[in-house]
């Protein structure tokens, strides 16, 4: 009971932050920020990429790990698959992208679950390898111009008002949410996050689950890569940008602690939206980009202090009866 209540409160507190951010922006920049067009753009066109990546990061963190390599895997997979999409050979393109994603996912997974290397250091070196290979492959030649059909993957919209990219993200979200919260697999995942030993001694397939987490991350990375291809109409190593940091930040702001076993992909969405809205707002207000990371930092700091306050409040309310 307590845990569930706790989670709910955590989540609500994050939502509150989001609301505050949006409200502030809406008030000071009503005409340009608080427009359907802008909100649609931020939520449906800019946020999805960060959100998708942050999903992966969150899964890793929930299992008491971390995945530094996702962004690089994304770059590599988008590069290797670009040519095929360009030739309109979608199936092959998807296969290649997925292949890269799964491949690196398995590498990460095996290193962490079987060889038992610190997730941080394992994914750190995989990150080097993936990005390095991306450089090798790209070698300065950007791949540009994709068939309209492929572009419509992100630009077009099957259901009016909902760009496909948004639909895809929602689909992924629903899938992941059900997978993590409603299935035995998800229960296993959280158990591992809380206490790997107990999970193992309870006959859970710890290694397989861990492996699967990183494979999912790989696939998510590949997906994001392909979507970027479609959005930017080009394969470009600079898309890595600050995605790793952003997705970690999204998880943290969303309220997924590195302790493992807590939070859900719902938190991730909230966290990601907070960051993206801050970015959007600062652009709109034409504040120098230099300020962005500082502001994000302050928001994170604020969010935790605020969480502590809530916890204190709850205890004060004396919900918790302790057996000695």
């Amino acid at each position: 009971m307590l845990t569930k209540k706790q989670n709910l409160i955590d989540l609500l507190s994050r939502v509150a932050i989001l609301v505050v951010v949006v409200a502030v922006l809406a008030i000071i920049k009503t005409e340009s920020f608080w427009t359907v067009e802008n909100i649609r753009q931020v939520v449906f066109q800019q946020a999805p990429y960060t959100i998708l990546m942050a999903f992966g990061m969150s899964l890793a963190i929930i299992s008491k790990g971390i995945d530094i390599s996702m962004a690089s895997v994304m770059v590599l997979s988008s590069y290797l698959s670009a040519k095929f999409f360009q030739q309109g050979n979608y199936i092959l393109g998807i296969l290649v992208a997925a292949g890269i994603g799964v491949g690196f996912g398995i590498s990460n997974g095996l290193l962490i679950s079987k060889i038992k290397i610190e997730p941080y250091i394992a994914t750190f070196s995989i990150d080097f390898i993936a990005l390095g290979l991306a450089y090798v492959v790209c070698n300065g030649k950007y791949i540009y111009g994709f068939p309209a059909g492929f572009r419509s993957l992100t630009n077009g919209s099957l259901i009016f008002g909902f760009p496909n990219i948004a639909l895809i993200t929602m689909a992924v979200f629903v899938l992941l949410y059900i997978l993590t919260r409603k299935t035995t697999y998800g229960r296993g995942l959280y158990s591992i996050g809380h206490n790997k030993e107990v999970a193992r001694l309870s006959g859970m397939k710890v290694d397989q689950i861990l492996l699967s987490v990183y494979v999912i991350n790989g696939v998510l990375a590949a997906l994001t890569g392909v979507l970027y291809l479609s959005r930017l109409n080009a394969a470009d190593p600079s898309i890595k940008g600050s995605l790793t940091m952003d997705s970690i930040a999204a998880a943290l702001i969303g309220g997924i602690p590195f302790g493992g076993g807590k939070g859900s992909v719902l938190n991730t969405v909230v966290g990601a939206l907070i960051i993206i809205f801050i970015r959007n707002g600062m652009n709109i207000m034409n504040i120098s980009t230099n300020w962005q990371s500082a502001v994000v930092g302050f928001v994170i700091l604020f969010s935790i202090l605020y969480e502590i306050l809530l916890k204190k409040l709850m205890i004060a309310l004396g919900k918790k009866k302790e057996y000695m």
Partner: protein
Amino acid sequence: MKKIFALLITLTFLVTTLAACSGSTSKDAANPKEEATKQKEIVVILKNNTAPFFISVAEGAKAAGEELGANVTVKTPVETAEGSGNEQQIQLAEETIVSKADCVVMCPVDSQAIIPVMKQLKDANIPVVNLNTRISDNTMYKTFVGLENYNQGYDTAKALFEGMGKKGKIFIIEGSTGAQTSIDRVKGALAAVEEYPDIQVVAQQSANYSRAEAMNVVQNLLQSYPDVNGIFCCNDEMALGSVEAVDAAGKTGSILISGQDANDDACAAIREGKIYVTSFGNPYMQGYTSVQAAIDLLGDKEVKDFYEVQTLVVDKKNVDTFKDKK
């Protein structure tokens, strides 16, 4: 046992990927150490190995090396992130002292931070040819090869404003914070703005030379300044990002976009009329000339202290022809 197995799988996967990728770069991998004995060693240090611009600089340099009979090695930082790139350039420069290069062609990430190591080269009396981006202390190099990023920015901006009919609002999209080229080009553009009283800069934001970020930034800016008429970008990647953003807003044609460097993607976009103007820095020529200058130096020939590579404003008219007049 299991661990060994897992280890094997992982490594085999990595190796195969490596192999898969190796095809595309075998030519780079070959290192021209064979006839090192008699030929002059010229080390060309560039900013990175991912931007098309520097790839063709490298090609130009290598070509010059082969034609004029010098042993040219191109080195770039591994880390392309701003800042660390600079630190690694220093490292690379120091290594040229170790490997006793005869001459170094330097294209610094950071005009300031590179100076101390340039001093070291001076002490080791290895002559330096400064390429593309000026080193702040002009006693550190024998000659400068390249274009004035300032002029390039100025010319492009002018062309853009003319296209806009001498009036309207513009965005300026900067490159990575701290990058010299970006700083100079923006200066140039602003200088041009001075000359056009009816041109007004409404927003100035960085997009880290990245297409993706430019797209987001422009999308966001368009929200607050929907009535903008032109976008000045510090490189083509960002210009192309802006193109996508403008497309998405359905304003193609009504907003003129200018880039820099004239890479293939940008030229394609110009043909489609999506980018209005860019400017050709002729990277190949820059690379070539720099090595040429280096060889002259070593051959004790007279060298000018500035070889300006002509920049060329590229628009629909000359987009198909400009490359011929190298």
